[in-house]
């Protein structure tokens, strides 16, 4: 789950990372008031969960509170990459001497968090990582020991940071580590971490991703989920414990298991069709879950056929069959369905569906081909 910039920075500040003075505003009047309180130049930043806000005109400077009101009004009326701007952050503008990158994430290959720093902070850090990877300095953190002071110094020397800043850089690095660890982040990033004209370090921008699996111990963070970034159907699916991603095609898919769901999408494409979605009903899917899945798939108007591919393991095919029938009672549809039930209680499942008007298939390839034919009206 992604957190907004202002939330991320508030969390960083809790762990001793210096951030600019400022607050978030939902209206231009509020933005004006905040700018008045701050006095002087401010920066107005759209709070949307996409990259490239600056390039899209969603981050702008204002010389005074009147200008802040105008700029905020313009930004609040924007849509950036399809997302409405609902809030702006009004921050004191910093006098920037230099921009550093500092971030921490999980390195899956070594099973450890890795903290990375670069003297080339700013918007093009991904470019830096690709073209000059030696400019990114890394330290691997033992999760049982945490970040050690010497590791923060190694980063500071690695990016040729002047000795005057080692101490404050160490505090920022330690604060970022603590913010990452205490909140079950999978990414915590300050970009840029600026050196101001007054020779202070300041986290001007911040980004955090939180591990969805750990939200049970962070109910406060769970409430911060921004529903704008996911399709309505994805939110609805999550309520039922389903995993759904909308794609562009016309063959709706309902599958148990993520790997098999991906393989089903792939084989549709391989034989010349286009999957409408990824949908994993999970293991042991009870019939109400299956009914919800059916409803969500049928809600997509571009779906012309539904392919149901169930390999029973923990999931019992008869239970899925009951779910399909109860789902169909609720959502009346003429959309043709191709079902393939294999594994635990498949025979019972097929019997339950025998009276329903469905196309059946034995193999995955057959199911895919029949779905494609049905989508083309064959």
């Amino acid at each position, binding site marked *: 789950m992604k957190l907004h910039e202002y939330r991320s920075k508030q969390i960083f500040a809790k762990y001793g990372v210096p951030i600019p003075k400022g607050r978030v505003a939902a209206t231009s009047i509020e933005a004006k008031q905040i700018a008045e309180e701050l006095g002087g130049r401010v920066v107005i930043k759209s709070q949307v969960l996409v990259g490239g806000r600056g390039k899209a005109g969603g981050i702008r400077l204002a010389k005074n509170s009147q200008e802040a009101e105008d700029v905020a009004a313009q930004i609040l009326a924007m849509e950036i990459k399809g997302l409405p701007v609902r809030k702006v952050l009004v921050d004191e503008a910093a006098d920037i001497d230099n921009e550093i990158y500092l971030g921490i994430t999980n390195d*899956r290959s070594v099973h450890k968090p890795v903290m990375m720093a670069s003297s080339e902070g700013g918007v093009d850090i991904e470019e830096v990582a690709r073209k000059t990877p030696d400019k990114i300095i890394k330290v691997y953190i033992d999760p049982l020991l945490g970040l050690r002071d010497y590791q923060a110094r190694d980063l500071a020397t690695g990016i040729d940071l002047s000795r005057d800043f080692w101490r404050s850089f160490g505090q920022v690095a330690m604060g970022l580590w603590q913010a990452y660890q205490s909140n079950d982040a999978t990414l915590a990033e300050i970009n840029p971490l600026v050196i101001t004209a007054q020779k202070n370090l300041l986290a001007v921008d911040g980004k955090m991703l939180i591990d969805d699996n750990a939200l049970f111990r962070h109910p406060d963070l769970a409430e911060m989920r921004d529903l704008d970034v996911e399709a309505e159907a994805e939110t609805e699916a999550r309520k039922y414990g389903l995993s759904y991603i909308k794609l562009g095609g016309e063959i709706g898919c309902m599958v148990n298991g993520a790997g098999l769901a991906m393989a089903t999408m792939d084989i549709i494409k391989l034989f010349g069709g286009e*999957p409408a979605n990824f949908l994993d009903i999970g*293991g042991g899917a009870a019939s109400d879950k299956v009914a919800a899945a059916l409803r969500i798939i049928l809600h997509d108007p571009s779906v012309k056929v539904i392919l149901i591919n169930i390999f029973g393991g923990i999931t019992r095919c008869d239970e899925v069959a009951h779910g399909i029938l109860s789902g169909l009672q609720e959502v009346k549809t003429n959309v043709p369905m191709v079902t393939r039930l294999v594994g635990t209680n498949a025979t019972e499942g097929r019997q339950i569906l025998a009276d329903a008007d469905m196309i059946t298939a034995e193999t995955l390839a057959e199911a895919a081909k029949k779905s494609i034919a049905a989508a083309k009206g064959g």
Partner: protein
Amino acid sequence: MSILINKNTRLLVQGITGNEGLFHTQQMVAYGTNVVAGVTPGKGGEWVLDGKIPVFDSVKIAVEARGANTSVIFVPARFAPDAIFEAADAGIELIVCITEGIPVQDMMCVCGYLDQKGVRLVGPNCPGLLTPGECKVGIIPGDISIPGNVGLVSRSGTLTYEVLYALKEVGIGASTCVGIGGDPINGTNFIDVLSMFEADPYTEKAVLIGEIGGTDEEKAAEYIADHLTKPVVAFIAGQTAPPGKRMGHAGAIVEAGSGQASDKIKALQSVGVRVATHPEEIPDLL
């Protein structure tokens, strides 16, 4: 005829009195697995499956009383890391964690600790292992595979069943099938299992089932080039997955610059691995 589990496996089930734990204990026993004990803290002294399997309060007591050497974990995600630590500290040699949804930072701590102790973990978020005809640890349906000489290793659950079933349909059996799980941080990776297949005299060919996310398949390709004499066939799921979207598994996501199916397929093909275009093609390639 196998790796990791066989008829000498003495299995302990952590979370044996829960719904899933009990159901799958039944299935494992029915398959012929030697389930020697269960653990549920607070339920020590009880028996399950009509008095056949004793329940203990701790793994330590269960190991002392029943000589368990392998553990399978069915406890909920928030308690699973503790269950893994407990098994490792009690001297269990192989821990198989079925549980889905364990926080990734917990798994980093678990893996760090287990590496120091030299204990093997398979999973989490995996279907477990199956040595057809001998032993089943986890939730892979027993009747979809027959004994044979093909070793399978997979990041996926039901997709693995699909492949086992397709092999059985044409009379091809498996030595051992290992589901390593779909999480970004897991105890056992492709290379670990491939090296065991290489050393196992009864495994003649290997099947690798990967998916988008991470670079484990690419690393496996390098390993295959340098260390494997046995032929390998692969399938990679998620060729049509859009970047930045998590495909169900916590580990299945194409991130900036890595994790794409096409890169994995290219890496595997470049070292002579035949990659199937869909799962049902695997038997032909073998």
